[in-house]
């Protein structure tokens, strides 16, 4: 793992076209400005992990499921 030290206003470049600049440091928070091509998704790590987990749960929780009765039951008490 590479560890670097940067000051506010300084950047890190990853490959040809990803640039991460430190734009502010306040107490225990750091703000970054990230420039990346649109095919490179950029997310907060915990959000990405949350979606990863929920996607896996979506697939596995419905593998054996017949959703028809759940939908029909819901239809009996439709929202007016």
């Amino acid at each position, binding site marked *: 793992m590479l560890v670097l030290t940067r000051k506010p206003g300084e950047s890190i470049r990853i490959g040809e076209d990803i640039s991460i600049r430190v734009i502010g440091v306040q107490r225990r928070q750091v703000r970054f400005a990230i420039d990346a091509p*649109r*095919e490179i*998704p950029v*997310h*907060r790590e915990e*959000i*990405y992990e*949350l*979606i*990863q*987990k*929920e*996607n*896996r*749960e*979506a*697939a596995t*929780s*419905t*593998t054996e*499921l017949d*959703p*028809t009765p*759940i*939908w*029909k039951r*819901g*239809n009996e*008490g*439709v*929202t*007016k």
Partner: protein
Amino acid sequence: MRIDSPRFGSVEATEDQLVQFERTIPGFPGCRRFAWVDHGRETPLRWLLSVEQPEVAFLTLEPDQFLPSYDVDLPEWLLGVLEWKPTDDWNSIAFFALLTSQDGELFANLVAPIVVNLRNRRAVQWIRDEPHLPLRHPVRPLDPEARDPF
């Protein structure tokens, strides 16, 4: 194209029933192409069946079916990835929520909907970094008469 799925058996999918994900679906890096399979049985539910890993299928539902107030403000990068141009028909963009089953109920992930350009069948799972959106919103069918007219 024929897909042999443990759930659906042998599925014959034509080109217009396929979608291509332009970005990795978190948790499913090997799955880029999916085929639509209607659940039918008088429900609006549809499955997205993975072409590369046919044991993977997602149950999906359009948010209109249970939450007409689900607002979207599509960022430009997303429209760019879907190759949607401002001169294109807005109706060619469709949304689908992935459903999770828990304790005999269905829940929709409203944080990360699937967005599809129906014209070219390009798709993306859009991760909306907005704290008010629920990861599991209970799915209850709407009364057809109470549907949002828009």
